[in-house]
């Protein structure tokens, strides 16, 4: 029962207070990252070294880049379960395109094809969802299985090495000395995603669809087309993630990638993007990915078993979403 009179009185809108209000989630998430970081500085030996911080960014890069794409899908109220095994399939295809025993294509052509594979997978997801009307959960669950199967079939279950120097350089080289290219690409893609979300029709329509799909359709927006484009975009980000992942070590294990989709979704959700759609936050996603990687690295350096890292990450997801719900309830309480 919110009304204009109430709303008007509640809203005092100086630019600064409005900024704080709209970005309070970012502030929260960022503060959480700093707190976690400070905790490990005391708890884990050598964690305070700057090198560790750079490592964290580098290692967060592939999940982070995929999470940037997933942010758009989740903004529409959708979900992508195929991003983990899809990443592996794309990486396997990267091996097929670039490695010596297969097609051995030049790097440039290979990269274009790799991104294209990601885009096509996104396109298929998008068409299944918007044209056939399948729920995103089901459509991408199916794609997750298909991708896993294909990755195993194409690779013959064998590890594929991508011994292309240029390819490995994409992740491990340092255009900016001291900063691995993977980190640089992560940062650049975050900027691209931020622009796409906030300054282009793609992002605007993604949020509008997540906010109220029917009202958006009745505003004359071609919802099917734009939804499909969102999944294509996410597919391209997934392919970039696959490049960063496989180029890091120069080989691909086709059985990997299962469960990565959950890390991607967790990064987006920790960042404050609403799973019910209509609200998305690129900086949040970046910080969300960093939080997950910081926990992993910090617990690892404290000598805590990997299994416990999962437990802690799970708890962080719960806390992040809970804080967001409490905050929003307060904001809309009338």
């Amino acid at each position, binding site marked *: 029962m919110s009304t204009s009179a109430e709303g008007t009185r509640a809203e005092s809108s100086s630019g600064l207070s409005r900024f704080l209000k709209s970005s309070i989630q970012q502030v929260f998430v960022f503060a959480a990252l700093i707190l976690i970081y400070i905790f490990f500085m005391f708890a884990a030996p050598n964690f305070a070294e700057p090198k560790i911080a750079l490592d964290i960014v580098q290692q967060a890069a592939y999940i982070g880049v995929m999470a940037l794409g997933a942010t758009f899908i989740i903004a529409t109220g959708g979900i992508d379960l195929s991003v983990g095994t899809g990443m592996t399939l794309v990486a396997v295809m990267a091996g097929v395109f670039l490695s010596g025993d297969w097609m051995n294509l030049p790097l440039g052509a290979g990269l274009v094809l790799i991104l294209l594979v990601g885009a096509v997978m996104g396109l298929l997801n998008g068409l299944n969802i918007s044209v056939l009307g399948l729920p995103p959960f089901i459509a991408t669950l199916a794609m997750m299985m298909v991708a896993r199967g294909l990755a195993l079939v194409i690779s013959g279950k064998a590890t594929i090495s991508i011994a292309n120097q240029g390819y490995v350089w994409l992740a491990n080289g340092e255009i900016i000395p001291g900063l691995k290219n993977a980190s640089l690409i992560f940062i650049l893609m975050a900027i691209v995603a931020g622009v796409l979300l906030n*300054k282009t029709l793609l992002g605007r329509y993604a949020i509008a669809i997540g906010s109220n799909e029917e*009202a958006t359709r009745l505003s004359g927006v071609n919802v099917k087309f734009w939804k499909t484009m969102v999944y294509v975009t996410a597919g391209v980000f997934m392919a970039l993630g696959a490049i960063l992942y496989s180029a890091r070590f120069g080989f691909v294990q086709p059985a990997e990638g299962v469960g990565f989709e959950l890390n991607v979704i967790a990064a987006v959700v920790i960042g404050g993007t609403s799973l019910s759609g209509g609200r998305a936050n690129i900086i949040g996603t970046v910080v969300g990915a960093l939080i997950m990687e910081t926990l992993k690295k910090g617990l690892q350096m404290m000598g805590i078993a990997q299994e416990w890292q999962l437990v802690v990450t799970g708890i962080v997801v719960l806390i992040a979403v809970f804080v967001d719900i409490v905050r929003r309830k307060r904001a809309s309480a009338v």
Partner: protein
Amino acid sequence: MTKLLELKNVSKTFPGVKALQNVQLDLHAGEVLGLCGENGAGKSTLMKILTGIYTPDPGAEIWLQGTKVDVRDVNHARELGLSIIHQELNMVPDLTVAQNLYLGRPGSSKGGFVNDKDLNKMAGDLFDRLGMDINPKSYIRDLSVARQQMVEIARALDFDSKILVMDEPTAALTLQETDALFGMIRDFVTPETGLIYISHRMPEIEEITDRVTVLRDGEYVGTVVTDDVEMREIISMMVGREVSGEARPRTTVESDEVLLKVEGLNTKHLLRDISFEVRKGEVLGFAGLMGAGRTEVARAVFGADPKQSGDTYLHGQKVNIRTAADAVRNGIGYLSEDRKTFGLLLEQDIKQNAVMAAMKDFNIGGFILDGKIKTVGQEMSDRLRVKTPSVNQLLGKLSGGNQQKVVIAKWLVRNCDVLIFDEPTRGIDVGAKEEIYELIEQLSGQGKAIIVISSELPEVLRVSHRIAVMANGRITGFLDNADADQENIMELATVGKTQVVDGAVA
């Protein structure tokens, strides 16, 4: 007369907002008390305090039959004999009537096991006692809204409620169903019970209530005996000024040019052979009972729902409209009866909502022109006098009237020639209604062709130059405003079958 219920000095503060301030209310045994006020006047908040959903600020007193009580929560309220039937029905569509009736009720299960046979029997007995003809085994999703409401009423009565609150119960009911509801209300009220009836609809207040309490802006205005006052006086208490009841359009149609023509429109389930035309600068009203097919006409013309056959002409040119995007491209705008579901992005701000249908004019190569959006949003907000501190305000925080203005702005920014208003003032304050009517008048004056669908006959008569009346999916007649009155519209609306088939609404 004994006072069944007395509320004294009730205030309620929400963060930053004073929703109620020292409000009082008393309900006599054996009466129906109307509770009136514009949206946001605090009616629902007051009733939520009474039924334990909200806790009032300290100092509030609730007296039941001379005893001071503290309503702790909803269950406690029920124990005290206080029940409320909310505007939005609280039912689980995928459970049966009986399962819904006893959902969450102690004693409806044994050791965690539910026995549907028992529930059905209990529900059947209850309906027999109340004289309601409802099958306990029907699924709620298969019942019409009116019958769902009957189930809600049955549930409230089953609690042995002494005091029943109904919040806008007739919003989705047909006239016959409303009559049936009133019958039930009269049966409910005995010398031991009382009922509080919240409604915007003055004829209903006049018919069913004994006294009326009016709130305005969270404060108590006064209580009057229904028979002693004219409804106009109650409205003026609500809005703080006089409102006339018999208004008609103040403009005439200048042009003979037909802007929109629809011929032989049929849909699979409901519409049969719908043909009409709207001239430049004309407002064509669509009247009819609920379920007659008015909204379906609008949605089919707009391409929101598929049609089986029928042609649409704009400016004399045949156009092919199969999707909403086609309609918008051809300059047709549709303002849905359900703004929140079909018209607005509640979590987005005014300026974004205003340009939502015209994004093609607000981007270059896919990049959004934020500055232009802000300028145009501001311009529209000023022109339509949206009451808001800024165009960055989220739509969810605006009142119904201001939300409606933003939906209008959306189609003005798109520069539509044809505007279809479906229930343009539903859920809007009495005072803001006139503003919307004036806007419609202005728009027709600018040469737009306008269709207004409305269930409120005074509204149809107020804005339409011509009126198309529908019944059972057909147009049963056209009336010029000068010849039209509530009686002859109702005659046409009830042509043929007098009852509208349950569930005929697609």
